[in-house]
């Protein structure tokens, strides 16, 4: 892959990934809600509801607090931008992505950290009790989830001797089928981190209305209209990105791995859709089976994730699998 002159198909893959992420993220969210409703024997709103929400929000006038600073206004754009760039780096459809030479898996973790920091700063900007509460809790979950995610990636990097996510994905895709306990442990760790970072039960309830129990929602309370739309879209994108990282690391088959491969690319789209459907269903299942933890128990939850990631690393070094 020539860094200076990416081929047409590489650019197409890149663009396609970004567009697909933007388009499919709210749908994924709608699907997860639908599965949750099925499992709780309720009727969910339509799968297309998140789209309607976002569109409705864009149309509205933005109401800002009197003491909101320029940081408050620019934060939604930055959070949204980082999530889109993250979507461009994750090999959801193909592994030949020109942008990846500029950012590897550690930079990806850094992108998520940037989004989290700006979100927290924006929450602290207006100076309400709930905003600062949400910021504090988000940083608490974040400062434990980030090392856990880094250890998951580190474990995968040790197996593949590189930290570039597409290269890891390619390496793992060429492994023969079998039982790999180290990957199993790492996968469990990754799932726990996914639940924590995306404000899912058992760490945070995305559908709660009680401000004192919120982590993620509390940071968005002061936003309205297009800012809120961008933030909601960015949250959906974050879940989508995490799911795609999980696929790239643990279920990498179906991703196009050769450079000039329009057939592979076309094939990867339904494969991705199928993976997302299964992932959404499993996520809803996990959420329905668990109860929300007390906020102060969340660090223990993440410590468990951390432990699993480190165990996966150790088991790999010892058993060689």
């Amino acid at each position, binding site marked *: 892959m020539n860094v200076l002159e990416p081929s047409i198909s590489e650019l197409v893959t890149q663009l396609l990934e970004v567009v697909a992420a933007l388009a499919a993220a709210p749908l994924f969210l709608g699907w997860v809600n639908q599965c949750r409703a099925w499992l709780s024997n309720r009727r969910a709103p339509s799968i297309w509801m998140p789209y309607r929400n976002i569109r409705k929000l864009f149309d509205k006038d933005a109401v800002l607090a009197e003491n909101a600073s320029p940081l408050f206004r620019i934060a939604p754009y930055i959070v949204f931008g980082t999530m889109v760039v993250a979507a461009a780096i994750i090999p959801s459809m193909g592994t030949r992505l020109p942008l990846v030479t500029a950012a590897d898996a550690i930079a990806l973790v850094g992108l998520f950290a940037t989004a989290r920091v700006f979100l927290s700063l924006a929450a602290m900007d207006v100076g309400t009790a709930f905003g600062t509460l949400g910021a504090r809790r988000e940083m608490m979950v974040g400062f434990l989830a980030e090392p856990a995610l880094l250890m998951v990636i580190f474990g995968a990097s040790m*197996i593949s001797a590189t930290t570039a996510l597409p290269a890891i994905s390619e390496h793992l895709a060429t*492994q*023969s089928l*079998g*039982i*790999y*306990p*180290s990957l*199993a*442990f790492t996968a469990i760790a990754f799932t726990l981190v996914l639940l924590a970072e995306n404000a899912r039960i058992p760490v945070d309830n995305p559908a709660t209305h009680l401000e004192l129990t919120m982590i993620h929602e509390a940071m968005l309370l002061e936003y309205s209209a297009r800012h809120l739309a961008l933030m909601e879209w960015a949250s959906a994108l974050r879940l989508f990105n995490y799911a795609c990282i999980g696929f790239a690391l643990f279920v990498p088959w179906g991703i196009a791995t050769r450079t000039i491969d329009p057939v592979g690319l076309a094939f990867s789209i339904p494969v991705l859709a199928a993976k997302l459907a299964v992932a959404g269903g499993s996520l809803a299942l996990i959420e329905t089976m668990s109860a929300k933890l007390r906020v102060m128990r969340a660090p*223990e939850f993440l*410590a*468990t994730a951390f*432990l699993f990631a*480190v*165990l996966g690393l*150790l*088991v790999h*070094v*010892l*058993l*060689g*699998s």
Partner: protein
Amino acid sequence: MTHLPFDLQLLNACAALLLLLSFAMLSQRRIVSLVDLLAVQGAVLAAATLLVAWRTGQGHLYFSALLTIALKVVFLPWLLHRLIRRLQVYWDTEPLLNISGTMFVGLVIVVFAFSLAQPITQLASTTMRSAIGIAIAVVLLAFLMMITRRKAMSQVVGFLSMENGLFFGAMSATYGMPMVVELGVALDVLVAMLVLGVFFFQIREQFDSLDLHHLESLKEIE
């Protein structure tokens, strides 16, 4: 990763599961769950023994697996559950070190056990020699559990878990111990359980609780 035959992959999976169970026992606060985890550990051990028996064709390992199931999956957990119900001890919530600290120490111990096992692995001649490190780790983690717990019941579970680890180590290094040794060890464990059962009642009668720190008052010098 090299391509291993399927049964070896299953054996590696059993070894990893044993390690996971040791950590799970280290962090468990409910004693009933602790005993259940011990039973699962015994089951995994029996499965591993069966796999090795099938792979190497050594007949006495089948018998050994049967003994493991009878003793460690059925009888001992049943005995322990009965004890728990009669002694009414269900929770062990005050370990010596908090859970995260114990986990951290556990991780360091596992790393130590793995590095210890690396030269031994080169000397052994069995197909499962890479699991020796895990066996040592399980033994040390069970020892750690015995140290950091306060209730006598958890310490007994730790002791039994140590024995599981030793058994796994013996199997992965030398394809099991001679039958005489195995029967002897099984008998010792049974007798130990019976004696401990009596002991627990005595402790409870004396101190009205199974909290082991009461035993510290049994000193000559104050």
